Structure formats: structure tokens, C-alpha cells
């Protein structure tokens, strides 16, 4: 059986569901790039969207949350950081 490709729609582009120019509050890199410790955008360098409205690379935020003095607070508004399940 032969398959003839009649049309092709590229679906290889993806984006986080955040405004385009929004940057991570910790590393200041835009969300369509990875955190400074990662190389490839995508699942390995996920984005955490906080209930307080502030978003961070997961890696950036975890480094802060694992710092004892952070007390689990959002770096921007200093409310307890809880992320929205997506």
C-alpha cells in the first residue's frame, strides 16, 4: 500500500500558555527558553504557574524553595507559593 501525502500541516511549534514577553522572575529568561541550567526547552524544564499569578521555571523555583530561608514563599509577592495544576 502506498500512501500519498496530500497536505502537511506543521505542528512542531509549541508555547507555554503565558504572554510572549513574560520572563521568569528569578533568572529573567523568557519562558520560551529554558532556565539557565538547561539546554532544551520543553518538558524537562517545566514552567510553574503560581496561584498568586507569578510564574517561574520549575528549576529556578525549586532552587529557591530548597533554600531554607525561602520559607516556601513566592520570590515576587512573598505569599506562600502554590502552583496551579495544569
Amino acid at each position, binding site marked *: 500500500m502506498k500512501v500519498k501525502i496530500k497536505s502537511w500541516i506543521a505542528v512542531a511549534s509549541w508555547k507555554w500558555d503565558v504572554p510572549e514577553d513574560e520572563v521568569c522572575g528569578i533568572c529573567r529568561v523568557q519562558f520560551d527558553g529554558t532556565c539557565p541550567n538547561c539546554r532544551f526547552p520543553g518538558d524537562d524544564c517545566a514552567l510553574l504557574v503560581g496561584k498568586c499569578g507569578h510564574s517561574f521555571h520549575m528549576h529556578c523555583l525549586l532552587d529557591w524553595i530548597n*533554600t531554607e530561608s525561602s*520559607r516556601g*514563599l513566592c520570590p515576587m509577592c*512573598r505569599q506562600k507559593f502554590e502552583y496551579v495544576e495544569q
Partner: protein
Amino acid sequence: MAERILMNEYKELQKEEWVHVELKDDNIFRWEVALIVLNPTSLYYGGYFKAEMRFPKRYPYEPPEFKFSRPLWHPNIYKDGKLCISILHQPGDDEMSGELASERWSPAQRVESVLLSIISLLDDAEVSSPANVDAGVMLRKQPDEYKRKVKENVETSKRDIPAGFKMPEKAETKPPPKEDLDDDFWCESDEESFGEDSDGDMEFG
């Protein structure tokens, strides 16, 4: 990560007129900065206040250190040039100091926000700070004498202007005004420094 963030911040700050930044020994973790007070209504107008900043490897998760090269006569500045200002303290340090966690360091802070806080600290001293008790007393009781000392500091600071460096003059380029800081902004009871050098002698070279 720290290197990349610091390099970006360094480049951004090089565009600003109110601050002069250079790296010490080409080390991105050590900066020589000079705060240039462009606001003509400031008592510190025209000053060129040199300082050194050191950044931890874990920046921005930990705050930088800041130290004036020539200590200023100021209630919130220790005699070694270090500052009593909560933005340079990690939340959770010295619980009892009366500083609110909300004014402490966080990884969302930047060198720029630190330096702007320091500039606004100059004119908005917290007289109850323990960093220089004598200066606090003088500011309250002999404001004219205090102003005279500040003027001396400003004049002395100008010796640090590098040859060939053109001081900016336009007041429009002054940093944006910070919103009002409430009283808890400053650290209030860092007791260990109380009483140290209480004779009030300070020399300005």
C-alpha cells in the same frame, strides 16, 4: 547560572548614568560600583560614592554584599562602610531584628533594586538604626552639623571620580523615585554594634 544573570545585569547597568560599574580583576562576582547622585534636591547631590559588591556563587538565591569604600557619616552606615539595610539580608536571618520578611532579599531582587534602595537610604535615614548611633543622634539634635558632615563626605567622594570620567549633570536622568518605605524597612536592633566607637570621632581622609 549566577554568571549568566550577573553578566546580563552588568551590561544593563552599564547603560545607566546614575551608576558606574566595573569588574574587579575581571571577576563577575566582584564589582566596583560608584553611585552618582543626580537628584539636585538630595543632600548627596554631585557625590560619587564608590563601593565594592561581592556576589555569592548562589546569586540570586543569596544576596550580594555591599560596602562603601569611604564610610559615610550616616545612621545606617557602619564605620567599615557596610550598610544596615534589610534588602541585603536573607529572610530568616536574625528573626528578632524587627525587619519584615517582605523587605528582605529574594531571588526576584536585582543589583539595580539594591542600588536604588541604597540611594534612597542616603536621604531617608532611619535614625534608630544601630549602625552609627552617633550619626543618628546628630541628625536628630544637630541637623546643621549633620548636614555639614554630609557635605564633607560629598566633597571627599569627588576625589574618586576617575580621570576623564564625565559626571552626568541632568537631573531628568535621576533614578525613578521609589515608593514610600515604611518604618520597618530598616533593621532596628542589631545590638552587637551598639556602643562601638561611641566617642563619635570619625575622620574623613
